[in-house]
């Protein structure tokens, strides 16, 4: 099969000269940083130059053309003045209930807008920058792993430029009852900026926590969010993760989440891609301990000229693990939705139970759905299924509702909502599920994406 290619097939060595495209990464270096970090950052700049940014020729980026992003002249976010979202918006995004709340603006932690709990034994919930030196044994190996052969240049670019992010560390048996709510807000104040974020969630044996992330920015602004989250789950630890991407429709959002799970651990994530011009949410889950479970669900709702890409790779390394993937896309206008699911069952991972489902609803004759549910299996005692479907609303179903006095438009929006509701229903926390349902409902009724200031 020939790989469709566009014009952008040569690697682009951005990041070294600062002449257009992404900013000169070295500019953002802070002389006051510890040596080990400066060295890592220098190395990262070299790795970016060496690898170049992905092109349509890379199988994992086959349908996502990032040239519009590389064509813009970005500045490092740190060099820009910082404004902050209104308290009302923060309350809207985080709710007013208790629990930890962390607010980042242009990739920097804002203590005055955040709310951190009294430190409980075995619980560390903070921003990465403040714990960098103290937590070096945890942070450094994770940063170094960003240069792995399978990782694209945005990982290294993140190491070179990220200043801050979320850090959660739980000791064995520590339990955080209230979900940790994190808001990433960006206001580039006129010039396109890069907001790089590095977050780490490291859970000891049997500990558990829920994390809710929102990405949003000032209306109509142009910026790039480059967010990377590392997750490590100890034996029988549990993480419930929820993320909603509401960036303004001219912004770019590239996020990667890398999850490593030990024996009997449980990971659940639900992501909703709503905003951004190009939004890419990459998830890689390594099931490394026997009996680990991962549930990876997502929604993407591109419209206008939006492009949403959801690459998911689940690596079944250990025997007896379970993974579930359900992704649904509703594509309107010229919107393009890409699902790039991949299950790899390693040699010896017997008793694997993996499934992968992707369904797409095309609402316009200009929209496009690309789906690649891939299975790669090197063990024989496995149960793996995958399925994908692309279609439109059933005329009969619309007619049925119309016959009962519901307008055609309302009928269509009702049926579309029903289509995505399957994913909404799978959100474990009822309040989070309710919030997602509200966001999706607004969106499908034509509400704006980035509802920032």
């Amino acid at each position, binding site marked *: 099969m020939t790989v469709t290619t566009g014009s952008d097939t040569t690697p682009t060595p951005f990041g070294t000269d600062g002449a257009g495209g992404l900013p000169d990464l070295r500019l953002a270096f802070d002389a006051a940083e510890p040596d080990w970090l400066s060295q890592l950052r220098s190395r990262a700049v070299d790795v970016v130059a060496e690898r170049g940014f992905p092109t349509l020729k890379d199988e994992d980026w086959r349908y996502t053309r990032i040239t519009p992003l590389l064509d813009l002249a970005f500045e490092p976010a740190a060099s820009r003045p910082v404004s902050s979202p209104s308290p009302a918006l923060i309350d809207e995004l985080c709710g007013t209930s208790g629990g930890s709340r962390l607010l980042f603006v242009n990739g920097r932690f804002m203590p005055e807008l955040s709310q951190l709990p009294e430190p409980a034994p075995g619980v560390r919930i903070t921003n990465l920058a403040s714990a960098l030196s103290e937590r070096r044994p945890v942070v450094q190996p994770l940063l170094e792993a960003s240069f792995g052969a399978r990782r694209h240049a945005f990982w290294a670019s993140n190491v070179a430029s990220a200043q801050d992010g979320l850090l959660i560390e739980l000791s064995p048996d520590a339990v955080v009852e209230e979900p940790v709510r994190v808001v990433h807000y960006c206001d580039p104040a006129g010039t396109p900026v890069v907001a790089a974020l590095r977050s780490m969630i490291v859970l000891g044996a049997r500990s558990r926590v829920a994390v809710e992330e929102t990405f949003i920015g000032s209306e109509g602004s142009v910026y790039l969010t480059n967010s990377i989250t590392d997750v490590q789950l100890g034996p029988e630890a549990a993480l419930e993760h929820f993320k909603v991407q509401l960036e303004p429709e001219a912004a770019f959002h590239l996020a990667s989440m890398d999850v490593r799970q030990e024996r009997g651990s449980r990971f659940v994530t639900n992501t909703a891609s709503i905003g951004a011009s190009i939004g890419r949410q990459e998830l890689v889950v390594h099931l490394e301990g026997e009996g680990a479970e991962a549930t990876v669900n997502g929604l993407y709702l591109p419209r206008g000229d939006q492009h949403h890409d959801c690459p998911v790779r689940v690596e079944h390394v250990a025997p007896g693990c379970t993974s579930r993937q359900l992704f649904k896309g509703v594509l309107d206008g010229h919107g393009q939705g890409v699902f790039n699911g991949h299950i790899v069952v390693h040699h010896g991972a017997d008793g694997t139970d993996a499934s992968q489902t992707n369904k797409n609803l095309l609402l316009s004759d200009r929209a496009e759905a690309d789906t690649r549910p891939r299975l790669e299996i090197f063990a024989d005692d496995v149960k793996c299924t995958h399925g*994908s479907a692309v279609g439109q609303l059933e005329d009969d179903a619309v007619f049925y509702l119309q016959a009962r006095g519901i307008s055609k438009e309302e009928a269509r929006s009702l049926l579309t909502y029903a289509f995505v509701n399957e994913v909404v229903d799978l959100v474990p926390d009822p309040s989070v599920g309710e919030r997602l349902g509200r966001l999706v409902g607004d969106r499908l009724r034509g509400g704006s994406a980035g509802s920032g200031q």
Partner: protein
Amino acid sequence: MTQVSSDVRELASREYQYGFETVVESDAVPRGLDEDVIRLISAKKNEPDWMLEWRLRSYRHWVTLEEPTWQNVKYDPIDYQDVIYYSAPKPKKKLASMDEVDPELRAMFDKLGISLAEQERLSGVAVDAIVDSVSVATTFKKRLADAGVIFCSFSEAVQNHPELVQKYLGSVVPYRDNIFAALNSAVFTDGSFCYVPKGVRCPMELSTYFRINAADTGQFERTLIVADEGAYVSYLEGCTAPKRDKNQLHAAVVELVALEDATIKYSTVQNWYPGDAEGRGGIYNFVTKRGKCAGARSKISWTQVETGSAITWKYPGVVLQGDDSVGEFYSVALTANRQQADTGTKMVHIGKNTRSTIVSKGISAGHGQNTYRGLVKMLRSAKGARNHTQCDSLLLSRDCGAHTFPYIEVKHPTARVEHEASTSKIGEEQLFYCRQRGIPEEEATSMIVNGFCREVFKELPMEFAVEAQKLLSVSLEGSVG
């Protein structure tokens, strides 16, 4: 389970049954490839200028290409200068009848169980037997001629029907399509040509047996089948190759063109030398096969049973251009020992209400690696298009691999695409159920495998269904049961 394991071991280490070499004098051009070699091939075949020009254009494009890296098969780089691009068995004299065919060649066919004489007398199948690159015997020509069907070697077609060849050659697989298509277009030596005129239903199944014979001769076949308006043709392609240690490249091109209301059914049983248990030797089967449903309501159906070759890398596809046209792909691919396969199909929907069906069954044993890779593309014009894909994999050992890489690209809201896939090993419960009913374990295993492939086998023409089942039986039941 111990029984099954030992059966599987046997299966994984099955010996290639058709490993013999027939000594026939070969007339070969020097090793290597440049423009002079192409001119020499063209001159030997007494080709018109336009044919030579086309070959040279292809060659000049080929030298600019690099080999792709996305495929899920591994092999050592191919040294294209170490291949002999043309070799023809020296004809002792012009052949008038079957009796005059080289006795050694006939003996070889007999060994394969494809006795031409038998076929002519009993089976009603016209066989255009190809040994190496030149067609040496064609049967049933007269009956076909009476119906107006042209079925001949590609060389003959270039001489006798240049207008048809010029019109359709490269119209489905242009020489720019991929590196192996470019190579084939430059150096192809022979192949089959078939033209079924308007409204004619071809009176018999057409069949070609391919053989790779002379040592180190890469075989570059070119097949072109055109079914004119309302015509019907069913074409059978079967392959066995003598055992050999050195890897051999086979880069064929098959083009099918179906005009309005025409139907082409193309069936393949491929059983080339797969290499030994350690993966030494075996054929590289890098073939470009594509059909074009050019007219409304036309239909092209591919059925393949792939059990041979060290590496199988091909995607027989259909371009569904005519409104209401239909594309089908039915495949069984077996990889044992160190065999690798990266195969599937491409269905490109252009016309309105076009429909395609894909049924793929992959069986992996030993250290075999079996990849299904399939593209379903619905263009903006493909209003009301439909696709259904069913992809199943069966794993028979702990060391094999089964991979599924579908690509689905949809640009029209009324298009409907469904893909389903499953991967499993033979279930303990299934075996237990059979044994409870007094069916021995080995028989149960082969029953389950045969049942697994049934959907594909039933698409094969009678003659091939028998051979395919026999092949799988030899490969599976023979060692399993």
